[in-house]
């Protein structure tokens, strides 16, 4: 857990220090990408705790989910239904809380509480 917290802090520090920003028009893409990343990370933690973690599944899942989410945002922009990105947000959101609940329960059993 410490390693993950350290990695997260390192990433945030790196982003803040380099002060990189993207054009305002692409902010929706970034938001969906952040959600996809949170979802993938929680999924990864859960798989790790369940001892079913597989590099291939994890990396490919992260990449395809992010690309699909970006594609949905793009299509929404093109066909004039800008709210289409909500589809990705809802899907990721539900999975996120689902995974979070499982991780919580797994942690209790792992630490024997």
């Amino acid at each position, binding site marked *: 857990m410490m390693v*993950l917290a350290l990695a997260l802090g390192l990433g*945030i520090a790196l982003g803040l220090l380099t002060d990189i920003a993207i054009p305002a028009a692409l*902010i929706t893409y970034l938001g969906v990408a952040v959600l996809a990343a949170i979802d993938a990370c929680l999924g990864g933690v859960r798989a790790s705790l369940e*001892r079913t973690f597989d590099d291939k599944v994890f990396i490919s899942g992260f990449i395809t989910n992010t690309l699909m989410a970006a594609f949905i945002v793009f299509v929404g922009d093109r066909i004039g239904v800008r709210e289409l990105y909500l589809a990705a947000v809802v899907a990721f959101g539900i999975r996120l809380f689902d995974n979070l609940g499982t991780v919580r329960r797994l942690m209790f059993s792992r630490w024997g509480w």
Partner: protein
Amino acid sequence: MERSIYRPALVVIVGVLGFLIAVSFNTNARLVEAVPDRASDLVGVVRDMEEQRLELEDRLADLRDEMEGLEREAAEDAGVSDTFTRELAEARALAGLTAVTGPGVELTLGDGSDVAPGVDPNDYLIHDTDISAVVNALLADGAEAVEINGERVVATTPIRCAGTTVLVNAARLGSPYVIRAIGDSESLERAVIEDPVASLLFTTYANQFGLQVGVTRLTNVEIAEYRGSLRPMFAAPVEGVSGS
């Protein structure tokens, strides 16, 4: 501490997540910064321009004084009779380039208060068209000089709507509007009260919407000179017709 159960791939992606969060934080911070900047920029531009206009008006007044002096000198030099100078002074007074005084009327037009629910709030405001109607009635009755909140009405004066204010010459005016006119005060007062359009302001609309209106006859009204520019760019005098 036992060996971490987390694989390097997961650790890397968690790092990427942190980076993405930081980037969206940066982007949002910039968006928030950018928005009020533009609005205050525009307010600043308007304020600067208005200040500039006032300065230019002052300069124009100075130059006009100077020109008057030079004209007087020139008239004396050429030995032209006093009639010419007097005619010039009269023409200036009628054109609105000098402050004038005389008997006349003072009209007040102020926005109404207490907007009743469900009623168009526009009905409670004095509009450019209301001011136009009053000024028109005054001029039709032979008013020799008219000003609105200190802005002299001359031949090229526009009266138009500019958001919540009314634009007269180049000045933005707000309620209450004080219109002063020089002429036969009794006749001017009657002209406004009996004008089919202007009279509504003082009767029906005043009662219905609580407009703050009033007409006062005065024995002595002072009306300011026109401070804007009067330089024709396109119109030229027709050849062979004597000016004055």
